[in-house]
C-alpha cells in the first residue's frame, strides 16, 4: 500500500526514485539494538597497573588493534568510560583508589579482571596484594595469564561483547548478585610449544 507498492500511481516507490527498494524498514527488538550498540563501542578506562598494562597497550597497538572493535580510546576520565580493565596487581594502597574510580563510572559499566593478579592475587599471596579484585569491585570476566597476551584479552573482550549483546550478562549478574563472573580460557601460545631444556 502506498509508498511500498512497487507499482502504482503517483506516489509509488518507483516515482520517488526508490526503484527495487522494497524493504527500507528494519524491525527488531529494542533490547537487541541497545545490546548491540553497547557492545560495539565500549570505551575502556585507563587502569593499567603493572605488567598487564603493557599487554593491554599491545592489544591497543597496531598488531592486535582493539580499534577494530571500537575500543582504542582509553578514556582517562572514568566518567566517560564504560569498561574498566583492571590490568595488574592491586595493592592495599591502591584498592580504595580502584573503588573510587569504579564508583565514578556511569552505569552501565563492566569490569574485566585481566591477569591472574587481578583475578585472584596471582603468584603474590601475601600481605601487600588484594587477593582478587573482586574483593573490591564486581567482576564480569576473568582473563587468566601472567600476563595474558593480547589474544587472551581479546577473547575476554569478545566474550564480554557477546554476553552484553544477548543479555546474558545481565542475567548472570542477577544470578550472582554482583558481577557476571565469566571465566575465559587462556588463548596465548598458539604457536609451536617451547621445550625447556634439551633432551
Amino acid at each position, binding site marked *: 500500500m502506498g509508498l511500498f507498492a512497487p507499482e502504482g500511481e503517483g506516489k509509488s516507490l518507483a516515482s520517488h526514485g526508490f526503484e527495487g527498494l522494497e524493504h527500507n524498514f528494519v524491525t527488531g527488538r529494542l533490547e537487541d539494538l541497545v545490546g548491540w550498540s553497547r557492545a560495539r563501542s565500549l570505551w575502556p578506562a585507563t587502569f*593499567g597497573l603493572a*605488567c598487564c598494562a603493557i599487554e593491554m597497550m599491545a592489544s591497543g597497538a*597496531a598488531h592486535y588493534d582493539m580499534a577494530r572493535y571500537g575500543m582504542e580510546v582509553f578514556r582517562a576520565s572514568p566518567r566517560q568510560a564504560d569498561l574498566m580493565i583492571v590490568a595488574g596487581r592491586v595493592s592495599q594502597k591502591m584498592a580504595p583508589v580502584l573503588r573510587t574510580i569504579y564508583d565514578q563510572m556511569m552505569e552501565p559499566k563492566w569490569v574485566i579482571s585481566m591477569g591472574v593478579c587481578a583475578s585472584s592475587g596471582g603468584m603474590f599471596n601475601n600481605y601487600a596484594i588484594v587477593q582478587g579484585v573482586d574483593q573490591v569491585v564486581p567482576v564480569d570476566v576473568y582473563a587468566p595469564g601472567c600476563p595474558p597476551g593480547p589474544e587472551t584479552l581479546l577473547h575476554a573482550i569478545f566474550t564480554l561483547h557477546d554476553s552484553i549483546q544477548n543479555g546474558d550478562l545481565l542475567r548472570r549478574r542477577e544470578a550472582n548478585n554482583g558481577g557476571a563472573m565469566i571465566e575465559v580460557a587462556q588463548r596465548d601460545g598458539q604457536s609451536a610449544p617451547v621445550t*625447556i*631444556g634439551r633432551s
Partner: protein
Amino acid sequence: MALTEDTETTDSGQADDGLVGDASRVTGIDNAVLRMSEAEVAALTQETTDEFGDSKMIINMGPSHPSTHGVLRLMLEMEGETVLRSKPIIGYLHTGMEKTGEQLTYLQGCTNVTRMDYAAPLFTELAFSLAVENLLEVEIPDRATWIRMMMCELNRMTSHLLFMATNGMDLGAVSMMIYGWREREEVLRFFEKVTGLRMNHNYIRPGGVAADLPDGWQEDVLGLCDLIEPRLEEYDILMTGQPIWRERLQGVGVINEAECLALGATGPLLRSAGSSWDLRRDMPYLAYDDVDFDVIIGTYGDSFDRYAIRLNEIRESIRIVRQCVANMPKGDYRVQNKKVTPPPRARIDESMEALIHHFKIFTEGFKVPEGETYAAVESPRGEVGVYLVSDGSSTPARMHVRAPSFVNLQTLPHLMHGGLLADAVAIISSVDPIMGEVDR
C-alpha cells in the same frame, strides 16, 4: 679489551673530585621536595587565605592518570601553571616481592624478580642470577653468557622502543605509540619463540639460561636487526628534527652531573648530564668486554638528551646483537652441575639419580652457601642490583633489589622545579620510571 675510539679511558671526566656542576640544589632540606604529610596538606586546604594571600596551591596528580607511567602519584605545589615543589608518592604497586623472595627457592626467585621491571625483565633476572652464582661460585659456560648478553640487548631494544612510544604519546606524537609497538611485536615474537613468553620470561636462571636457542635463530635475529635499523631513521624524521618536539623537550628538566651523582641516579639520566658511566663498559660483566659498542653521552642534561640517548642506545644494541650472532660460541647453555641445574627431561626416565635431583631441585631447591653479595647490571633505566644474603638454606635470607627507577624518581622534584605542568609530563616520561620496580 675492545674499546672504541669514542670511549673515554680512565679518569678523565670520571673523577668524583672534578664533578661537572654543583650539587647544592639537591643537598639540604630546603629544596624542591615538598616534604609534607597528607594530614599537613589536608590541614593547609582548610586554612582560609585572604584575597591577596598565597597564590600557591597543592594539587594531586595520579595515581590513576594517563601520563604518569603507571601508578605514580605526585603532589605538586603550584603557582599558576608553574610547579614549585613536588613530592612523588609511591607504594601503589607495592607487591611485597622482597618478602615473597624470602619464601621462594633460588630457582623460583627469577619468576619473582622478573616482574619488578616488567619492561626489561631479563635484566633483573640477570642481576639475581649473577648474585646467586657469586655465592655458588660456579663458572657459567661461554654460550650461556653470550646468549644472556644477546637476549639482554634485545630486551634493551624493546624497553627503549617502549620508552619512545610512551614518550611520543605523552607529548602528543600519538603515531609514535603505534610505531614503537609495531617494532616491539617483532622482537616479542622472537622472545616467545625462545623463552615461551612475550614478557616476564623467567629465562635467565642461576646456572645459565632455561633453554637453548631454537634452530634458525640467527636468521630471526638478523632479520630483526635489519628491520629495526631503518625504522629508527623514520623516528628521526618524525621526532628528532621536528621543531615542536624540540621545543617541548629541549631545556626541559635539566640536571647536572653532580646532582645526579648526589641523588644516586644512574643510566640514561646520568649519561644525559655528561657522565660516561655505563656498567657495561666501566665494570664489565658477562662478555661486554669482548664486544664493540659506544656509550652515548648527552651534553645538556635535559629531556631531549635523554630521548636521543635512548634512541641511539637502540642502535648500539643492534650493533652488539650482530656481534653476538657472529661470535656465539658453541657449548652448554647452562652449567652442568647436578646440584644446581635440573637434568634433561629424557634422562629422568633413565636414571634414578636424575629423577631424585630433579625432585630435590624443584621441591626443596638447591642450597646456596652462607654469605652475602651484591651484583649489578646496566638495565635500560640504570643500575639494577641485587643484594642477596644467604643463610645456607634453599631460600634467601634477604633479597633486596636496587631498582634504578626507585632512585631516579628522587630527581623528579628537582627536574620539575620551576617548570610548567605540561613539562612535568614530559619530565616524568623522560625519566622513564617503571612503577613495578619502584614499589616492588
